[in-house]
C-alpha cells in the first residue's frame, strides 16, 4: 500500500484547493484551514521523504496500469526532496499571506490558486510520464497566471500578458516535442524513453529533440538567452506570490533539465553538455549584470534568480556525480533562499513605501531584525560560509573543476562576487545610514513577515552548519543520477 504515498504530495493540495474554493468569502475560516492543512501536509510529506530515503524509490502505477502503459508517479529521493522543499516554502508563504495580501484578493480564490500551484509543482517533480509532465506544467502555469493577475493592476496586467504569452508558446512547443519523441521511441513513459534512447544510442534526430526539450525547460528555468520574461512579471504581484514564483517556478524548469539530461539524453554529452557549459556561463554573467543594473530592490532579487539557475546548470554541465549532488543541494537551498529574499524585499518595499533603493535609508533603526536576516540571506546567496549556499556552491564548483571546465568555475566564482555586491547594496544603502524619521515604524507588518522569513532562514543555516545530517543523501542522489538504470529498473521493474 505504501506505493500510494507517492501521490499524496499532489493529491493533498488538490483536495485542499477544492475544499477552500467552496466558501471563499469566509476568509478567517479559509485562512485557518489553509494554515493547518499546510502544516499537516508538510509533516506528511516529510514522513514520505524519510520513508523514501530509507526504503528507496516509491513507484505508483496509477489505476494499476503497469508501467510503461499507465501514468507512473515516481517518488525517488530527488523528486521527493524537492516536493518537501516546495512544501516548506509554501508553509512559510501561507502564513505570510494572511497579512500581506489584501482581503479582497484573498477572497478571490487566492488559497485555491495557491494550493493548485503546490499541486502542480509537486506533480511536475513526481511524475514519471513526459506528457503528464506537460499537464502538470499547465496546472502550475495556470495557477501562476491566476496569481500573477490577482489584483488586476495596470502594470500587473501588462507584465503578466508577456509572461503568459511566452509561456504559452513554450508549452505548445513542449507538446509538439513530446509528439516527436513519441514518434521515434513510441512511448511517453520517461523510464522507457530512457531505456529506448539508450538502446538506440541516441541516434539521429534524438539529440535535436533533446535540445528542443532543453530550450523548452530552459525557458521555464530562465536560462540565457530565454529568461526575458522573468524579471518584471516577478515583481508586480504581491510579495508572497513573488516569493512562491521565485522559489518554485524556475526550479521546476531546471529540475526537468536535470532529470531529462541525467536520465534520457546522456549519450551525446560531448554536444549537449558542452552546450550547457556555454549557456551556464552566459546565464551566470548576464543574470549578475542584470542584478547590478537596477536600483529597484525587487528587481535586484528577481534578476538574482537567473545566475542561481546558471549555477545549477553548471553542475549539470559538469556531468559527474559531484556536480549533480552540488547542483541539487544548491537547488534546495536556492528554493528556500529565493523565497526568503522575495519576502524580505517585499517587506522592505512595503515598509519603506518604495522599492527605489535611492529613496530608502537607515531601515535598520526601525527594523533591525529584518536587516540582520537580509544580511544573512545576502551572504547565503553569495555562497559565503557557513550557510547552505556555501556547501552547494562548493560541491558544484568541485564538480566543475573535476570536469576540467576551469573557466566556467572561475566565472562562477566571479559571479558570486557580483551577486554579493548586487544585494549587499540593499543592506549598505537601505539599512545602514541615518535614521529616516519620516517613516512610522509598522512593527505589526514587520512581524508578520519576519516570522515566516525566520522560519525559512533556519533551514538555510541548517543546510550550512548541519550539512552532515543531510549531505550524504545528496551524495547518493549524485551517484543515482549518474546511473540511469536505477530509475529505469525501479519504474519498469525489470
Amino acid at each position, binding site marked *: 500500500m505504501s506505493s500510494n504515498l507517492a501521490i499524496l504530495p499532489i493529491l493533498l493540495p488538490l483536495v485542499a484547493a477544492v475544499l477552500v474554493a467552496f466558501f471563499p468569502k469566509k476568509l478567517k475560516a479559509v485562512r485557518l484551514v489553509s494554515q493547518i492543512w499546510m502544516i499537516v501536509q508538510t509533516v506528511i510529506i516529510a514522513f514520505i521523504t524519510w520513508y523514501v530515503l530509507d526504503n528507496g524509490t516509491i513507484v505508483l502505477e496509477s489505476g494499476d496500469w503497469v508501467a510503461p502503459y499507465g501514468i507512473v508517479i515516481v517518488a525517488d529521493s530527488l523528486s521527493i526532496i524537492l516536493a518537501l522543499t516546495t512544501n516548506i516554502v509554501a508553509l512559510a508563504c501561507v502564513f505570510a499571506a494572511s497579512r500581506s495580501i489584501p482581503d479582497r484578493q484573498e477572497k478571490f480564490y487566492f488559497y485555491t490558486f495557491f494550493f493548485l500551484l503546490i499541486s502542480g509543482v509537486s506533480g511536475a517533480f513526481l511524475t514519471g510520464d513526459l506528457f503528464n509532465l506537460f499537464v502538470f506544467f499547465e496546472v502550475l502555469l495556470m495557477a501562476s497566471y491566476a496569481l500573477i493577475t490577482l489584483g488586476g493592476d495596470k502594470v500587473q496586467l501588462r507584465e503578466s500578458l508577456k509572461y503568459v504569452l511566452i509561456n504559452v508558446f513554450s508549452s505548445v512547443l513542449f507538446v509538439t516535442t513530446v509528439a516527436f519523441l513519441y514518434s521515434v521511441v513510441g512511448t*511517453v513513459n520517461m523510464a522507457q524513453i530512457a531505456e529506448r534512447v539508450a538502446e538506440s544510442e541516441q541516434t539521429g534526430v534524438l539529440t535535436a529533440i533533446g535540445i528542443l526539450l532543453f530550450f523548452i525547460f530552459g525557458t521555464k528555468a530562465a536560462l540565457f538567452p530565454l529568461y526575458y520574461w522573468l524579471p518584471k512579471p516577478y515583481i508586480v504581484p504581491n510579495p508572497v506570490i513573488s516569493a512562491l514564483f521565485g522559489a518554485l517556478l524556475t526550479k521546476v524548469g531546471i529540475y526537468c533539465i536535470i532529470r531529462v539530461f541525467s536520465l534520457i539524453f546522456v549519450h551525446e554529452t560531448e554536444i549537449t553538455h558542452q552546450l550547457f557549459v556555454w549557456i551556464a556561463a552566459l546565464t551566470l554573467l548576464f543574470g549578475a549584470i542584470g542584478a547590478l543594473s537596477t536600483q529597484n530592490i525587487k528587481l535586484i532579487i528577481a534578476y538574482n534568480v537567473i545566475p542561481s539557475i546558471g549555477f545549477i546548470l553548471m553542475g549539470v554541465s559538469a556531468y559527474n556525480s559531484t556536480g549533480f549532488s552540488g547542483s541539487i543541494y544548491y537547488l534546495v537551498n536556492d528554493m528556500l533562499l529565493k523565497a526568503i529574499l522575495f519576502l524580505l524585499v517585499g517587506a522592505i518595499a512595503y515598509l519603506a513605501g518604495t522599492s527605489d533603493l535611492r529613496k530608502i535609508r537607515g531601515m535598520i533603526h526601525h527594523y533591525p531584525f529584518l536587516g540582520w536576516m537580509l544580511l544573512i540571506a545576502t551572504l547565503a546567496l553569495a555562497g559565503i560560509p557557513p550557510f547552505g549556499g556555501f556547501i552547494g556552491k562548493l560541491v558544484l564548483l568541485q564538480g566543475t573543476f573535476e570536469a576540467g571546465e576551469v573557466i566556467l568555475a572561475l566565472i562562477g566564482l566571479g559571479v558570486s562576487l557580483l551577486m554579493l555586491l548586487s544585494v549587499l547594496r540593499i543592506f549598505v544603502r537601505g539599512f545602514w545610514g541615518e535614521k529616516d524619521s519620516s517613516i512610522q515604524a509598522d512593527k505589526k507588518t514587520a512581524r508578520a513577515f519576519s516570522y515566516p522569513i525566520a522560519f525559512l532562514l533556519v533551514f538555510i543555516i541548517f543546510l550550512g552548519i548541519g550539512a552532515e545530517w543531510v549531505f550524504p543523501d545528496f551524495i547518493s542522489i549524485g551517484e543515482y543520477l549518474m546511473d540511469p538504470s536505477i530509475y529505469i529498473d525501479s519504474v519498469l521493474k525489470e
Partner: protein
Amino acid sequence: MEIIMTVLAGILFTAGVYNLLQKQLLRIIVGATLISHGAHLFILTMGELKRGAPPVLQDGIENYSDPLPQALILTSIVISFGITSLLLVLAYRASKENGTDNMEKLRGNENE
C-alpha cells in the same frame, strides 16, 4: 500523406510565429492559437495516419489508428482552450487598463 501534413503543421507554426511577432494583441493571440493548431496536427501525424479503423473496438477488425496521440490531443485541446480563454480575457483587461492594444506601447520601462 504524413509528409504533407507535417509540412502543413510547419506552415501553421510559421504563420503563427509571424503573427506572434506583431504588435497588436489580437494578432499575437491569433498567432498563439495557430501554433497550438499546428502542434495538434503534429501529434496526430506523429502517430501515423490512416493505418486502421477509428480506435473503437469492433469485432473482426485488427488494425486501429494509434489511439494514444488522439488521447493526448484531446487533453491538449481542452487545456489550450482554457488558456486561450484566459488569455483573451487578460488581453481585453490589459488593453482596457492600459488604454492600448499595441504591445510595443506596453513595454513599461519605468520603476527601474
